[in-house]
C-alpha cells in the first residue's frame, strides 16, 4: 500500500514540468535499443532476427496471391514464433508449436489448398469499404498497442526467473492439479471436433437421393 501511494503521489508533481522532456528520452532509448543492436549481445541479435523474420513471413501470408505460398509462409512464420518462444524460455511450447502447428495444422492447410485446387482468380483489388476498414483497423491496432508499449507502461519489474525455465515437470504439475477440469473438457472438445469433422466430410447420399 505505501508503494502505491508513493507512485500515485509522484505523477502530479512531475506533470508540472519534467514529463515532457522525460517521455521523448524514454522513447528514444527504446528506439536505439532496436537501431543500434549490440553485436556482442547474442540474445538481442537473435530476438531481432526472429522478430523480423516472423513479421516478414506474416506479411507474406497476407500478401501472397497463391494460397500454397501463403501456407508455406505461415509455416515459416510459426518457426519464427517458435524461436521467440525459445528466447522466452518456453522450450516445451516451442516444440509443441512446431510439432502441432507447423507439423499438423499448416500441413493440413497445404493439403486442403492442393485438394481444392482453387484457380487463382481472386479479385485482390485494393478498393471497397472493406479495404479502407482493413487499413484503419491496422493503423488503430498498431497505434494503440504501440503507444502503450513505447511509453513504457508495461515494464515495471525485471523478469522473475523460473528455475531453469519452464520445465516439463511444472507443466505436468499444473495440468494435473490446478487445470485438471480444463484438461478433461479439452479432451471432450477434441472428441466432439473429431466427430464433427467426420460428419461434415461425409457425403450425404440420402439427401442427394431425395432430390
Amino acid at each position, binding site marked *: 500500500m505505501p508503494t502505491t501511494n508513493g507512485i500515485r503521489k509522484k505523477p502530479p508533481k512531475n506533470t508540472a514540468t519534467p514529463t515532457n522532456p522525460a517521455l521523448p528520452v524514454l522513447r528514444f532509448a527504446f528506439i536505439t535499443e532496436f537501431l543500434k543492436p549490440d553485436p556482442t549481445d547474442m*540474445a*538481442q541479435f537473435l530476438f*531481432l532476427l526472429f522478430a523480423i523474420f516472423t*513479421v516478414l513471413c*506474416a506479411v507474406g*501470408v*497476407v500478401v501472397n496471391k497463391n494460397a500454397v505460398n501463403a*501456407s508455406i509462409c*505461415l509455416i515459416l*512464420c*510459426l518457426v519464427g514464433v517458435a524461436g*521467440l*518462444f525459445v528466447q*522466452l*524460455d*518456453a522450450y516445451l*511450447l516451442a516444440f*509443441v*508449436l512446431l510439432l*502441432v*502447428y507447423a507439423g499438423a*495444422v499448416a500441413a493440413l492447410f497445404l493439403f*486442403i*489448398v492442393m*485438394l*481444392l485446387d*482453387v484457380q487463382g*482468380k*481472386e*479479385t*485482390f483489388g485494393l478498393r471497397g469499404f472493406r*479495404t479502407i476498414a*482493413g*487499413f484503419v*483497423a*491496422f493503423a488503430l*491496432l*498498431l497505434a494503440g*498497442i*504501440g503507444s502503450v508499449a513505447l511509453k513504457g507502461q*508495461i*515494464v515495471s*519489474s525485471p*523478469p*522473475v526467473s*523460473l528455475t531453469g*525455465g*519452464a520445465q516439463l515437470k*511444472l507443466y505436468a504439475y*499444473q*495440468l494435473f492439479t490446478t*487445470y485438471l477440469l*480444463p484438461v478433461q473438457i*479439452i479432451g471432450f*472438445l*477434441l472428441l466432439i*471436433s473429431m466427430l*464433427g*469433422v467426420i460428419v461434415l*466430410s461425409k457425403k450425404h447420399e440420402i439427401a442427394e437421393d431425395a432430390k
Partner: protein
Amino acid sequence: MMTASLNAYVIVSAVLFAIGFFGVLIRRNTLIVFMSLELMLIASTLALVAFSRVNGTMDGNVFVFFILTVAAAEVAVGLAIIVALFRRRQTVQIDQLDTLKN
C-alpha cells in the same frame, strides 16, 4: 536469457495481430482468411508467453497449451466446413458466397 524487453515482445505480438486482422478484412480467399485468423491466434499466444515469463508464473504457458489444442480442433472443423462448401458451391471466394445477402 531474456534480454529483449517485454515491450519488444508485446510490439511484435501486436504487429502480428494487426497483420492477421488486416488479412482477415482484405482477403477474399476463405483459406487465406483462415490462415490470417491463425496468425492472430499465434500473436495472442506470443503475448501470453511473454507476460507469463516476465511474471514468473506458469499460468500463461499452460493457457497457451489449451489455446494450441483448441486451435487444432478449430482448424480441423473449419477446413472441413470449407471443403463441404467447395463441394457444394465450387468456389471459396468470399464475394461469391453471398446467398444470404439478397
